């Protein structure tokens, strides 16, 4: 291995610093129109009358389109086809798209959309998921408003609780979290005279976008080409939402035969695009006094908003993570994704697990305290190790580095439970895990393609179906290709992700890009390398088994030649140096009714230790330091892995301490602006100590497994546990605001 495992610089790093990347809004096309969306002002109602006569007369307005103009099916397909592209008769949330206005410039389009006259007869909305669940009269989805119910059942909970020495029972609540990607949602559609259409934009999942366009325009897949532009962050927010935007530009582009661009402004983006599901959790857990977790009973309800989008799969992941990374033989978890008349919630780093892990890890500390055992020892007695069985009945055969992550944070911090500390200071721990990849929840999409093309001058171009969204995929995959081919890293380039280059490779979600595209590239490189090996063997006059490729140098039979000369020789002989790679994951299994099965192929593991100081007069929590240890299998690029840890941790700090998005009495987002939705700034970053632990995953490229989401997931409970350690106030409702801590101090 020459570059795998090294801290090479990010492929697009210097471009980004110089501001040179081509983002969607940097593209201009001749004759391009600009779109704006006419949206529902009400959370629930029946559309009575639409009057576009006035706005149609505004100079510069090119046209207004409604569902009647859709040539294909009026649907944005995600998991279940319940979401219309444009509302027909009913609207179900504030901001639901009703019509698209296109104009010669963005300003006119937005102005016209804001002045559209729509009369809607208001119907009573359901805004609270706890009321919506099994509502007797109002049915937003099915007859119970439940998008998905999952039941995980093991052993005999009732009997086990009777045997427990301590039982802790609590209710927890977690709020919305907004992705706050630096680039808002952006999309362009370009129609071509041959009846095809090209979509360029900011996105995680080009194949989802292609499916949406084929659906609404009624086109075959070979007529829709989707190309990802440089994308300024995703975090899950650009998983399904770009499909909506793509429809919003593709329809007018198709009808008016002109390119159309649409960029949401920040407020619109924060009002109407997906967010982390708010959650309501009832959690009861019990242990014996020797520190064994014996029983867990939980109810996990997530607020899915007006359409199902990704709620069912978010719930799947949340449910699989519902008892944390522990052994427990008696479990009864019921989880529900519920419909309400609010903005549809969706994917966000962690995908349904940060909410429930906040409850799980808060419970663990409370159980430990009640037993009189320190929280580290209590966890050590219960954490999963190789050979153990998970809550879903999956036997862990390999790559379980949780205990080492726990040992490492303790070792690096120098902290031990019970160690004396200054007044107001507290330490809190969390141990968590993350099922890597789509797992059984997205089994049918668990495949990826890749293409590798070696040119006559030695330069290498590869294509994959997953996307670079700031996580560093391009660099990591380039490192893998370089080492697989034995070529220097600077020979390697990646094509912008493009649906016409590779077969449908599924989405860029679930921390899957390194393992999935990495393995597909490896498959392609092996095919090319076999040609190179044969040629090198004939040039060196030795057997292929004796040859070593390393960063452009080929040695064998006591001689050394340049890889470039081998490539040139292949070209002279007209041998093919391009190949397609393909990878499918080993099988997973799942039963919704019992919650049992091999849910994911492999798991990543992490321990976080937070140190806080609480101001007892104001309730302010000053986060002093976080140690974060993650088992990543193998860090292909340790600098990027540490970057993921630092960035994810800070996003977790926001979730824990500041980010407080709520809806008003009408069901609208109350704070859709950065002046009122408070996220951490660079100045709020505590000292973060990233620690990489490597328990190789035999099925991953060079032993790697994905972990990009995990750094966010365990931060909130670690901080909550630290606040308790500092001032004995237990916060069960995120975020941990000064008011809540102060109230807790007052109530003591």
């Amino acid at each position, binding site marked *: 291995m020459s570059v795998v495992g090294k801290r090479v610089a990010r492929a697009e790093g210097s471009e980004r610093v110089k501001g040179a990347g081509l983002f969607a809004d940097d593209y201009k096309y001749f004759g391009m129109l600009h779109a704006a969306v006419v949206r529902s002002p009400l959370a629930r109602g029946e559309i009575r009358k639409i009057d576009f006569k006035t706005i149609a007369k505004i100079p510069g307005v090119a046209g207004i389109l409604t569902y009647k103009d859709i040539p294909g099916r009026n649907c944005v397909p995600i998991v279940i086809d319940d979401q219309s592209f444009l509302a027909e008769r009913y609207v179900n949330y504030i901001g639901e798209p009703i019509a698209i206005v296109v104009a010669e410039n*963005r*300003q006119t389009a*937005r*102005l016209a959309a804001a002045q559209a006259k729509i009369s809607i007869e208001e119907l009573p909305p359901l805004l609270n998921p706890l009321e919506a669940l099994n509502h007797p009269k109002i049915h937003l989805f099915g007859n119970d408003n439940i998008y998905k119910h999952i039941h995980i059942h093991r052993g005999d909970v009732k009997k086990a609780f009777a045997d427990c020495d301590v039982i802790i029972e609590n209710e927890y609540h977690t709020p919305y979290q907004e992705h706050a990607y630096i680039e808002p949602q952006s999309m362009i559609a370009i129609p071509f005279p041959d009846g095809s259409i090209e979509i360029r934009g900011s996105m995680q999942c080009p194949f989802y976008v292609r499916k949406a366009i084929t659906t609404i325009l009624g086109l075959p897949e070979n007529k829709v080409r989707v190309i990802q532009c440089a994308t300024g962050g995703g975090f899950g927010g650009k998983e399904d939402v770009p499909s909506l935007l793509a429809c919003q530009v593709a329809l007018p582009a198709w009808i008016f035969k002109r390119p159309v661009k649409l960029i949401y*402004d920040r407020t619109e983006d924060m009002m109407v695009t997906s967010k982390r599901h708010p959650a309501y959790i009832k959690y009861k857990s019990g242990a014996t006094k020797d520190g064994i977790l014996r029983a867990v009973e939980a109810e996990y309800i997530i607020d899915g908003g007006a359409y199902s989008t990704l709620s069912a799969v978010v719930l799947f992941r949340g449910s699989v993570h519902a008892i944390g990374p522990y052994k427990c033989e008696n479990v009864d978890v019921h989880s529900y994704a519920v419909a309400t008349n609010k903005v549809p919630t969706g994917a966000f780093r962690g995908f349904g697990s940060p909410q429930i892990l906040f409850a799980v890890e808060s419970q663990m500390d409370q159980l430990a305290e009640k037993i009189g055992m320190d929280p580290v020892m209590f966890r050590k007695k219960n954490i999963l190790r190789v050979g153990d069985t998970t809550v879903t009945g999956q036997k862990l055969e390999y790559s379980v580095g949780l205990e080492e992550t726990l040992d490492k944070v303790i070792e690096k911090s120098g902290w031990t439970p019970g160690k004396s500390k200054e007044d107001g200071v507290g330490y809190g721990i969390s141990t968590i895990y993350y099922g890597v990849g789509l797992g059984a929840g997205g089994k049918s999409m668990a495949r990826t393609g890749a293409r590798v093309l070696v040119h006559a001058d030695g330069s290498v171009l590869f294509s994959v179906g997953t996307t670079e969204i700031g996580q560093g995929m391009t660099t990591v995959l380039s490192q893998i290709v370089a080492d697989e081919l034995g070529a220097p890293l600077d020979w390697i380039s990646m094509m912008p992700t493009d649906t016409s280059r590779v077969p449908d490779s599924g989405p860029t979600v679930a921390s899957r890009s390194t393992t999935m595209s990495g393995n597909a590239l490896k498959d392609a490189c092996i095919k090319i390398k076999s040609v190179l090996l044969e040629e090198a063997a004939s040039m060196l006059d030795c057997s292929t088994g004796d040859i070593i490729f390393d960063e452009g140098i080929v040695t064998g039979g006591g001689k050394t030649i340049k890889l470039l000369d081998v490539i040139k020789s292949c070209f002279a002989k007209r041998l093919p140096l391009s190949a397609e790679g393909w990878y499918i994951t080993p099988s997973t299994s799942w039963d919704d009714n019992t919650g049992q099965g091999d849910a994911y192929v492999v798991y990543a593991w992490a321990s976080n230790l937070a140190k806080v100081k609480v101001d007892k*007069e*104001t*309730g*302010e929590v000053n986060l002093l330091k976080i140690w974060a240890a993650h088992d990543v299998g193998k860090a292909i690029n340790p600098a990027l892995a540490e970057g993921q840890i630092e960035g994810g941790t800070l996003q977790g700090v926001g979730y824990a301490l*500041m980010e407080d998005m709520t809806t008003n009495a009408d069901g609208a987002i109350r704070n859709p602006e*950065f*002046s009122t939705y*408070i996220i*951490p*700034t*660079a*100045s*709020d970053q505590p000292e973060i100590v990233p620690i990489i632990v490597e328990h190789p995953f035999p099925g991953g490229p060079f032993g790697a497994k994905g972990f990009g989401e995990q750094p966010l997931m365990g931060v909130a409970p670690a901080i909550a546990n630290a606040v308790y350690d500092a001032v004995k106030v237990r916060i069960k409702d995120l975020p941990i605001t*000064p*008011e809540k801590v*102060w*109230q807790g101090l*007052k109530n003591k």
Partner: protein
Amino acid sequence: MISVESYKRPETIAEALKLLKTGKFGIIAGGTDVIPQMRHTPARSLLDIGKLGLDFVRENDNTVEIGAAATHSQIQNNPLIQRFLPLLSTACGLVGSWQIRNRGTIGGNIVNASPCADSAPALLIYDTKVVLLSSQGRRSVNLSEFIKKPYLTVLTAKDLVHSFVCQKGDDSAGNSFIKLGRRQAVNISRMTIAVSLVRDDSNKITMAKIAVGSVFPTPTRISELENKLIGQIVSKELFDETADLAADLMIKASGVRWSTPYKKPVLIGLMRRALVGASGIKEIPA
């Protein structure tokens, strides 16, 4: 979407006043408040005061005069201000973020008249007068009278804020500035407290100035607290009573609101902390 009807950047004050006389122009300096506000208002005509030379800081006998277009960064780092108006330097250093401090001006911070303007309590401590120019001439208004209510000042569309004339602080004063927010930067103040105290050798308080932001509808000097302190010997009891009085005055002025259960005890706690800080005494006698 932001749009502008017209934009002028005059190079003399006379020209600026002539344009302002039409009553058509809104003034833009750093733009850190005006530009975001324009997203919600119809297109308007802007007069940029960036070329008028109003970014000065100068010393007179007993005063320091600060041009309306001086940026927060400039004020934070100016040696004259650090020496004679230390609370103002501290306050300007806590405004927004590095970028906002580099662009945002003190004139803009005051004209916007937000209850939480960081520079206002500090300026109030230094008995600041606002110098206004118009085609009618020059006038000077006490800052405490300049801000009438939240987001409203005595300024008319024809006026230009020229400068702020601040009384130099007492060299022997102890100063304390506390800002309560939700994060470390780009932080809108939830409460600001500025305290300046002078005590003699017997720990008797001979001068006290106290101003707060986000406690009353506008940034305010609290003479009741100052009068309570002056002539008294520093003690824990005195500071406790003064802090309690601050909270009573807040409730008297604003009534009990949703935020009061938190704000009242926090105001008491932080006021006490500010008084102790300004007193310069580590162990306050009981």
